[in-house]
């Protein structure tokens, strides 16, 4: 096919918003000669180079490692957070998975708790505050015993690792009709609840993190499971079930 040699022709509808106070609007751009080997973010680089050369302002978007681990990147592509490919961050999505002539609608990760700062850049500091509320083991530097003193069952370590793989990108929130942060929060609650090191603060942790999640304005979970489908690290909603149990037990004990 000729698109292999000449590259893809794309029509982009991109959300442009000057700042938090600006109402924002979609703007259309046409982009030619997009190499199928490029990543989605490299396609955006190409668009921005073009815009700058034409005297326009480039599209702002967060990104950093470009290998799917830092969690900085992400936008909604044609209604899906990080685009259509399963288990893939936007930076790892490649243009060969789009047909020539594709129309792509790009929006920021929208949620009340994620105010737009500019274009596709949103403020996800609410996630940091949820972790600050309790997503840790209170162990000061120097007070740890020998690492092999407490054995951890391999299965538990693996399950904890599955949950700990969360990159904090916010796709779960953006894809949820309730803008719920349950998948994010439950991944951290699960990770620590599954390990012996997390036991001492287990109840206090889940209560504090859920309270903070609610205070930030994230919605409740109604089991639509879109978060799991959108998660680039394929974090399971089993974690949400676990967090609900943890939360219930914590509340029972404290009441």
């Amino acid at each position, binding site marked *: 096919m000729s698109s292999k040699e000449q590259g893809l022709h794309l029509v982009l509808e991109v959300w442009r918003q000057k700042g938090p106070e600006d109402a924002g609007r979609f703007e259309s751009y046409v982009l030619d000669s997009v190499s199928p080997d490029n990543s989605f973010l490299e396609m955006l680089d190409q668009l921005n180079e073009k815009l700058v050369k034409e005297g326009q302002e480039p599209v702002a978007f967060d990104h950093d*490692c470009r290998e799917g681990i830092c969690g900085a990147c992400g936008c909604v592509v044609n209604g899906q957070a990080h685009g259509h490919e399963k288990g893939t961050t936007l930076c790892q999505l490649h243009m*060969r998975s789009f047909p020539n002539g594709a129309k792509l609608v790009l929006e920021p990760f929208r949620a009340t708790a994620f105010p737009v700062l500019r274009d596709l850049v949103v403020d996800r500091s609410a996630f*940091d505050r949820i972790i600050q509320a309790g*997503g840790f083991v209170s162990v000061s*530097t120097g007070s740890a015993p020998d*690492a092999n003193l407490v054995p951890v069952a391999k299965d538990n370590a693996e399950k904890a690792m599955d949950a*700990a793989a969360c*990159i904090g990108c916010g796709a779960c929130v953006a894809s949820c009709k309730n803008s719920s942060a349950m998948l994010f929060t439950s991944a951290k609650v699960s990770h620590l609840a599954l390990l012996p090191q997390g036991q001492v603060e287990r109840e206090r942790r889940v209560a504090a993190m859920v309270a903070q999640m609610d205070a930030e304005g994230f919605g409740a979970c109604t089991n639509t499971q879109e978060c799991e489908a959108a998660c680039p690290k394929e974090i399971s909603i089993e974690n949400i079930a676990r967090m609900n149990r943890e939360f219930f037990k914590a509340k029972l004990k404290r009441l």
Partner: protein
Amino acid sequence: MAESKKTGGATTAAPSGNAASQAPKGTLDGRCPKGPIADRWTQHKFELKLVNPANKRKYEVLVVGTGLAGAAAAASLAELGYNVTVLTMHDSPRRAHSIAAQGGINASKNYKNDGDSTFRLFYDTVKGGDYRARESNVHRLAEVSGNIIDQCVAQGVPFAREYGGYLDNRSFGGAQVSRTFYARGQTGQQLLLGAYSALSRNVGAGTIKMLTRRDVLDIVVVDGKARGVIARNLVNGKLERYGAHAVLLCTGGYGNVFFLSTNAKACNVTAAWRAHRRGAFFANPCFTQIHPTCIPVHGDIQSKLTLMSESLRNDGRVWVPKKAGETRPGADVPEDERDYFLERRYPSFGNLVPRDVASRAAKQVCDEGRGVGSTRLAVYLDFRDAIQRLGKNAIAERYGNLFQMYEKITGEDPYRVPMRIYPAVHYTMGGLWVDYNLMSNLPGLFVLGEANFSDHGANRLGASALMQGLADGYFVIPYTLGGFLATEPLGSKVSTDHAAFAQAEAETKERLQKMLSARGKRTVDSFHRELGILMWDHCGMARNDAGLRRAAGRIAELREEFWKNVNVPGSGTELNQSLEKAGRVADFLEFAQTMVHDALYRTESCGGHFREESQTPEGEAQRDDQNFSHVAAWEFTGIGEKPALHREELSFEYCKPSQRSYK
């Protein structure tokens, strides 16, 4: 101290002159403790002065960067009671590039009962660094390595376990024991999330003030001491002043001077370079590590390179066609027309030679026109024989996620066709010069992690970067910073109204304005790409005198053009990513010249620095201990001016330098 009035801009071309025979202006003392090496750190900790617990909260400390070194340092210092403020350019401290480290973290726990010890880790690291690191520092690193694992496990880092519930280890390059702890292929992520959780606990408790989306653009120096920073709030563009009793730079390496590297896009040299311009010495900038197994460059829009774990070389065979200009697909090239060049040249180590050796060999065959793929800048890493021998399932079990990642990026199935790989810039061993206490030559300015030059010499071993970042942050700086602050009167903190703050802010503002007002024809990225190609061609895997001199001249021209012809849209009073990038590229354009100067000066080959003039008859790196067994630390003398040399002599009492051989 050299404080230049220049704020960037047109300067004279590069008189690198006689770098090769440059006489030192001064000598540096690393202030290492004396005595038996195993006792030095213990004795030193005892001798360091202490800060009274009630006084600690009155001491203010700025930590710049939240990677392993920064997050670990900030949390540990806050726990001790210091008044800590942290700045990061990211939207969250968890984004720092430590997060991308794959393989693991070394520690001499000897859990495998295979003969590991503090001394062996120390020895392997000094040797792996090609005898260009300080013995005292490296021994301390090995000593605290076990504490790091203890700390991380207590935080809940989900390291790989055996069925009995105890920690698992794997082996890595440059060592004959299994001492690498890992969390799948995401060790860096899990360690960083551990440090981030410790940091977050303190932020939540109000013991750390956390400032995100802040770019540190200058270091404020008063009477020779570091007293604060100037930061740009990336959301609203405002310049902010922060003062403190001490400043910790934990800002990572400068690999992005090459534009294409395995570093994250925002990794930059700015804070370190600005500190250098304010008087901090930059040590061994030419020591950069090129990783042999990366996915090759595919086109001119490409923005970064992706590393494939070097564990692949356990089963993959590296080859190129014997004939130059071969056009058949790799799988169709018959066996007798293939050159398995690593196995041919290094029969005893074969495909598992160290990173620097494998990288140079790949470059050589590509230079001979035998590279593969559309760009001819790649070699094959072929699993055909391993799949035949072990079956596809066994290979999938070992490398499934890597094969998947490769296919995602290249669109090719490595089970059917050989992978194409090529070396890429990965890590920088050079950095700001620090003494044994991790303090630069500017009192009050401490440098941790990849940003300093200290522990890896001329070549870093795999799984040692995570170890060093966390060692510096958790177990070194909490002691050594106290030693410094105990001698600093509480009243010594300088008000941010001081003239030095005003001047630094004014200079920063002027520099930003200058970039914004150039309104030229070239984008920031186009300058960065050109600089990157220049550095890769002349100061990359192999360097020679003529090429380095050419690069020095061209960098100066490019820098001059940048200030006249760069196009930075938008204003300075808003979220402006073009402006952020422009500032970083402007600093890379200045830094690159110092890096090239250092490479010219060091006429020997060692570790990641290969001077073509200094090789054995077989084409291997030839060290020159007679003339270069020292750290070259450079003092800023002006943009494009020849930097002044300060030498720190290295002595090896415990690891006797020898020529590395992998034949």
